[in-house]
């Protein structure tokens, strides 16, 4: 058959067209408001951006030889070598409430904050359980100063000699009422000024520990027992006896047996197992204790302690609160050049005469399994199970036994895990570790090895400088090695019977200078980028000569310089690490681009602008990755210093061993029962249980499972089991239809709640007026009355039994029950209106209320806030706009520099409406005279004059001030094209944290710009309000037990549980997993910084909500139509909007009539 040319051509054309389409697609696939409105001023932003680093600070005081001024030792000799500050008497008494307050006599600084009352109680509480040197609370309190998180303590100090000093602070970490995980954070002020950037945030670690240690004393040694201390690891069943100790539950145990003559004591560590042998996470608690702290860097860039320059004469030293309360016991100034300086390994070796000490015998080996840490620096350093090798001790092919530490997060500079140990022989030792470091390819990670006890002193410190750089190389598999810095293996001197504590702290070690160089380079290039951006816009014309050599000569030079810096750094890395992994190659790629851009008088700049931005992002991620020193540790062994390589623990299992292990674990995976994970006892069919559904990710549901089973968990406190099921989003509706739904559902959005509620598909759990709350016919009267009683009374669950507060057993008083609750031994459930009143803002409660009945308890709450780039605003020399007027005044400046403001119209229409005093609904605002409970939501409020003005104002932003209607907010914020973006706070925060790493620290967020109202008395009131959206935990029909379900709902939304959930999310999924709890009390315990917390609180105090009354779906679409008509076709916005009002009101009327709700046709109907 003949083929015509036409056909062939046609085929060709068509196939090329479609092929390109497909390729393009594939390519793409690969790719109420009185206060509030706090924002940092321009000066604050500038001082933050321009503040000198510690390096620059030191350079200022160095003499021509590069030495720092040492205070005159002779003057100090008289004072015993150090300058001590009397923390109580030298405290500046400048606080208004200090003199009057009786508490002041105990040396307590109580800030003016609203939390002061709690703080004092916390303080007393902390002291009740703790007394040092036999001193009572009253005596001790006279010698210490309590600093609340909001307070500032300033001390006068008379410095005898000019020079550099280290600052040593003895502090006590109080247990806070919240389960706050964050470390104590303070700003250090010398003479009321921050000396350098790094002093802005000093971290005082809290000490955490697993609650799994028990000491058994007074045992009699058996004949076979070895003298001294023996450490044994055993897996035992409940009732088994080992070395005279009987264990209570199945689990994995560490016995530290100390035998002295015939006396024996056992320190028992236990990790309980569930019914399938999986380890159950032990509870972690804060361990309040005194710690000694030298002011030092938290970023990991400086290993030595910070030295501060102090002039002879009166000075002040201040600690300004950032996070968490602390008690200060002593502050000392220690001159540099004294004992406080850290020696080198050689000096340490010589000073302690290690050369003359003898190695111990090879029997003196002590093995420390890393899964039994004594202390941790924060509660995200957790133990876990690793099934990747059968050589890991212990290991099991079928169950998850905890055998390592550091799987999740033990990687941030400053985090540590500590182990105590004793040896049986005095002499020289070295240490080895079995570990896995598969995170940083071609690089090594470091741990600072700190020691306490014996010759190492009574505060944790590195014995010598090299210990900061204890080095662990990269490998995909497990490794075993003696601890050293890469050049030498460290030797240590330990004495028999002395208790030592070993701290393994994440540090950047010798990589710190290089990483800092890259970070500095990135900052410089970022600045260049911004200046070029202001000149050319984000998409420069490649063929236009911008004459960079005339306009931005310095930036051209800077680009060339930084290209060289990066190339050199890459080389240095290669030398240091010995190999060149892909991680290091990244630097060279960036260097090459910078080099090309700086060549040829910047001709290549225009063509490479977008590349540059993405490379900056790469660099930001590179720095983040490099600073993470992930290390999974299996065990640490203390050997004799002459132990050979053979003495090392086995790193890898043999070939046959690992194959057999794999086979067994493969078959075991068929029999693993994931539903019974964490169960300590076989489930009993008769027991009360609550069925809960959650429609989030697997990680989230795992966290809830773990929380339910934990010490503060629901099951532990009430004795009631919880069946938690992970379902997909759309499952709830069909399940309600089929009557197969759960008892409780977590996280239903407020519009669905109203939709389900009005159709009687979910159960109301609270009412404004319990007398008016009627049964809707879905329940029997008996059931309804039971529910009403349950949600309107206080109950205590004690020992698995529920008692109403007025029917407590055997003459128990309410106070006694409360005491049990405080000790986590009982569970208390509180009436609905009481808890919600304490926990939630009124706007949040409005969204789940229908005709006076509340459906559910809010769990998540989102709202828009304003994100700003402080570097760009500082460059423009403008303050963060406080009001819309200021924002509009900023606009010309920004637009002249090719920048704009990111505001999405849907959100803007809503919050401008409310800020300017309007409302979406008529008769729905409780603060106004025309409020009507029957008619709220019966008529739209968009046809009022205020609403019309607001709508047309927003529309004008887009039609006259050329705001973008459609844009990718986080991308434009990152590139600097939109230095101000108004957007949902957690999702934007989360995106920026991981996506825009190169601008870390250059942005912030605050409450929305406010709308100015002139009051009758001439004052200006500014309304900063935002609109909140809510998701809630709801109760469904067909629940099995009203009280249990209600208790679970309360427990799940409780502040400590919510913040614990948020914190675990961050610990497991990283800093971009911030959770937006609706519970206002939960914020405190989550990992927001002080400034962020202030901003969020600010906005939370200024929230409105738009309730989804029946028919509300129609509003959004018609306002959007009106808006788009104005933008697309230049229609008059108000006319366009008014054209839809009747249609909206008709739909609402129709919808309300469907549910027999009171209806209105026109506003005049009510009047």
């Amino acid at each position, binding site marked *: 058959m003949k083929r015509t040319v036409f*056909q062939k051509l046609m*085929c060709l054309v068509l196939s090329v067209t479609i092929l390109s389409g*497909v390729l393009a697609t594939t390519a793409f696939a690969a790719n109420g408001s009185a206060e509030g409105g706090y924002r940092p001023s321009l000066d604050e932003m500038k001082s933050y951006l321009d503040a000198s680093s510690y390096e620059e600070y030191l350079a200022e005081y160095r003499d021509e030889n590069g030495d720092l001024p040492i205070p005159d030792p002779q003057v100090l000799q008289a004072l015993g070598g150090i300058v001590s500050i009397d923390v109580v008497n030298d405290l500046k008494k400048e606080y208004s409430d200090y003199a009057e307050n009786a508490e002041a006599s105990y040396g307590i600084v109580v800030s003016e904050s609203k939390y002061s009352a709690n703080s004092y109680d916390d303080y007393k509480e902390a002291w009740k359980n703790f007394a040092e040197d036999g001193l009572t609370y009253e005596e001790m309190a006279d010698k210490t100063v309590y600093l609340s998180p909001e307070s500032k303590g300033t001390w006068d100090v008379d410095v005898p000699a000019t020079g550099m000093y280290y600052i040593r602070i003895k502090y006590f970490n109080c247990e806070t009422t919240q389960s706050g995980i964050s470390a104590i954070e303070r700003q250090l002020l010398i003479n009321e000024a921050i000396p350098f950037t790094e002093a802005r945030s000093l971290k005082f670690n809290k000490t955490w520990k697993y609650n799994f240690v028990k000491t058994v004393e007074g045992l009699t040694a058996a004949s076979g027992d070895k003298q001294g201390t023996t450490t044994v690891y055993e897996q035992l069943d409940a009732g088994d006896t080992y070395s005279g100790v009987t264990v209570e539950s199945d689990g994995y145990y560490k016995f530290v047996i100390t035998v002295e003559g015939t006396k024996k004591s056992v320190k028992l560590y236990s990790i309980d197992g569930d019914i399938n042998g999986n380890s159950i996470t032990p509870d972690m608690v804060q361990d309040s204790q005194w710690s000694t702290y030298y002011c030092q860097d938290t970023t990991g860039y400086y290993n030595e302690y910070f030295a501060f320059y102090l002039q002879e004469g009166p000075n002040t030293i201040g600690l300004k609160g950032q996070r968490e309360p602390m008690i200060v016991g002593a502050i000392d100034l220690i001159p540099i050049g004294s004992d406080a300086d850290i020696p080198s390994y050689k000096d340490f070796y010589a000073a302690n005469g290690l050369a003359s000490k003898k190695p111990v015998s090879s029997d003196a080996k002590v093995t420390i399994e890393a899964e039994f840490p004594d202390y941790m620096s924060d509660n995200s350093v957790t133990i876990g199970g690793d099934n990747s090798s059968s050589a890991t001790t212990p290991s099991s092919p079928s169950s998850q036994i905890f055998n390592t530490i550091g799987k999740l997060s033990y990687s941030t500079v400053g985090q540590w895990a500590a182990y105590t140990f004793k040896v049986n022989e005095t002499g020289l030792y070295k240490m080895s570790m079995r570990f896995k470091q598969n995170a940083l390819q071609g690089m090594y990670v470091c741990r600072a090895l700190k020691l306490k006890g014996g010759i190492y002193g009574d505060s944790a410190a590195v014995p010598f400088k090299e210990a900061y750089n204890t080095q662990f190389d990269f490998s995909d598999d497990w490794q075993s090695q003696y601890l050293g810095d890469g050049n030498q293996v460290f030797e240590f001197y330990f004495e028999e019977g002395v208790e030592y504590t070993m701290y393994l702290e994440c540090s950047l070690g010798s990589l710190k200078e290089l990483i800092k160089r890259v970070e500095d380079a990135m900052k410089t290039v970022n600045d260049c980028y911004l200046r070029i951006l202001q000149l050319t816009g984000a998409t420069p014309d490649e063929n236009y000569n911008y004459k960079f050599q005339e306009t931005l000569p310095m930036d051209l030079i800077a680009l060339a310089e930084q290209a060289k810096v990066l190339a050199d750094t890459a080389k240095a890395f290669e030398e240091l690490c010995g190999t060149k992994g892909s991680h290091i190659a990244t630097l060279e790629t960036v260097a090459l681009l910078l080099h090309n851009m700086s060549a040829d008088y910047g001709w290549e700049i225009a063509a490479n602008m977008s590349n540059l931005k993405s490379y900056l992002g790469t660099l930001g991620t590179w720095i983040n990755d490099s600073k993470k020193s992930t290390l999974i540790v299996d065990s640490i062994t203390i050997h004799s210093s002459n132990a050979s390589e053979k003495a090392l623990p086995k790193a890898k299992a043999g070939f046959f061993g690992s194959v057999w292990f794999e086979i067994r674990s493969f078959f075991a995976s068929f029999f693993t029962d994931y539903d019974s994970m964490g169960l300590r006892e076989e489930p009993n069919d008769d027991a009360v249980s609550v069925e809960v559904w959650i429609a989030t990710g697997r990680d989230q549901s795992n966290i809830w499972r773990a929380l339910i089973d934990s010490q503060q968990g629901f099951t532990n406190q009430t004795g009631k089991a919880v069946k938690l099921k992970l379902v997909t989003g759309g499952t709830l509706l069909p399940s309600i239809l089929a009557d197969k739904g759960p008892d409780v559902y977590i996280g239903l959005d407020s519009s669905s709640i109203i939709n389900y509620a009005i*159709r009687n598909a979910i159960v109301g759990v609270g009412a404004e007026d319990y007398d008016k709350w009627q049964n809707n016919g879905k329940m029997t009267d008996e059931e309804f009355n039971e529910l009403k009683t349950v949600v309107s009374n206080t109950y205590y669950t004690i020992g698995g039994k529920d008692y109403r507060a007025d029917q407590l057993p055997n003459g128990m008083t309410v106070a006694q029950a409360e005491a049990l609750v405080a000790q986590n031994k009982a569970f208390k459930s509180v009436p609905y209106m009481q808890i919600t009143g304490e926990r939630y803002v009124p706007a949040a409660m409005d969204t789940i209320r229908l005709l006076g009945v509340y459906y559910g308890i809010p769990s998540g709450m989102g709202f828009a806030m304003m994100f700003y780039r402080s570097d760009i605003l500082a460059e423009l020399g403008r303050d963060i706009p406080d009001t819309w007027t200021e924002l509009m005044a900023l606009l010309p400046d920004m637009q002249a520099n090719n920048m704009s403001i990111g505001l999405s119209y849907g959100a803007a229409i809503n919050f401008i409406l409310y800020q300017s005093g309007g409302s979406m609904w008529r008769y729905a605002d409780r603060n106004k005279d025309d409020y009507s409970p029957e008619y709220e939501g019966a008529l739209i409020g968009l046809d009022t004059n205020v609403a019309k003005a607001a709508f047309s104002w927003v529309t004008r932003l887009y039609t006259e001030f050329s705001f973008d209607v459609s844009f990718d907010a986080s991308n434009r914020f990152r590139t600097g094209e939109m230095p101000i973006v108004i957007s949902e706070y957690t999702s934007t925060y989360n995106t920026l944290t991981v996506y825009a790493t190169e601008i870390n620290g250059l942005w912030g967020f605050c409450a929305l710009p406010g709308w100015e109202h002139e009051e009758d008395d001439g004052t200006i009131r500014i309304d900063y309000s935002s609109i909140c959206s809510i998701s809630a935990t709801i109760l469904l029909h067909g629940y099995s037990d009203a009280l249990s379900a209600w208790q679970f709902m309360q427990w799940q939304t409780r502040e400590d549980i919510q913040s614990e959930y948020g914190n675990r999310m961050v610990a497991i999924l990283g800093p971009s997993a911030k959770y937006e709890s609706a519970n206002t009390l939960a914020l405190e315990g989550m990992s927001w910084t002080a400034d962020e917390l202030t901003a969020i609180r600010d906005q939370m105090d200024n929230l409105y909500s738009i309730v989804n009354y029946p028919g509300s779906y129609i509003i959004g679409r018609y306002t959007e139509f009106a808006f788009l008509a104005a933008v697309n076709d230049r229609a008059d916005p108000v006319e366009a909007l008014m054209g839809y009002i009747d249609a909206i009101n008709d739909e609402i009327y129709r919808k309300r009539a469907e549910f027999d709700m009171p209806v209105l046709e026109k506003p005049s109907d009510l009047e």
Partner: protein
Amino acid sequence: MPEISNEAAVETPVRPTQRAEMTKWQWTWKEIKRNKTAYFMLAPFFLLFIVFTILPVFLSMLLSFTDFNMLEMPNIVWFENYSRLFTNDEIFILACKNTLIFAAITGPVSYLLSLLIAWFINELPPKIRAVVTLIFYAPSISGQVYLIWATLFSSDSYGWVNATLMDLGLINAPILWFKDANYVMGLCIVVALWTSLGTSFLAFIAGFQTIDRSMYEAAAVDGIKNRWQELWYITLPTMRPQMMFGAVLAITGSFGFGGVVTALCGFPSVDYAAHTIMHHLDDYGGQRYEVGYASAIAMVLFVIMFASNIIIKKALSKVGE
């Protein structure tokens, strides 16, 4: 014509006499028993077909006479839904208009496009044909690939089309393509055509393969003048079953083209400019929980599709005449 006897398959030639002695039902029952193996083999599919296709249509018809709200017991309202639909729902009328415009353009055009391209491809050597077929078919198998259009015609000033037009100086501000009533319908039709080379296109290719080559030779002898005559008199009549199949798919596809529009334009589309009956159904069934009313809409859509199927069938029988 060679004698091919169907009677060889009939085992019992006496059947007609027996049939006369039975009632119709008795006879049917007897036949069922006789062919029980066939019914047994058919049963699994038939059961599923009834439960998941016939029954829902029937249920939907019943529900269209009620005010069912998905969560509560329905009340019977007889023809209220229908009367509201035709007399008191402007948007429904608009949706009907949009649907008909949409179907009238995309249905026939995509059908002809599939046919023509299949015809062209059929002329290629087998190996190349396989590759080209895959390339053409790829857009419709790769799920949500139409979202590429959302990127191309993004309202962002960095959208490909907007950026290009702005670079060329044709426009000053970005056009909100899928949010502008002037462009929405046109764009959606283009996207619909692009994704339409789906199953029917494959069926056509298969159809072309089944044609007996000797027919063309015979036709050449009988005096066919050109390729068009060949196509009209031989190729198309021979593959009538495939064409019917393709036509049914084209109709249902063009009437039911809702999801893609929603994904590109949002729901509802601006000013209801691309609001089809499918969307109206979604609106009432999904957003307003008025399942009774939505069922009435579904019934109307069902009737329209059914009617157009009959018309197409009639039209196809004219092919080759």
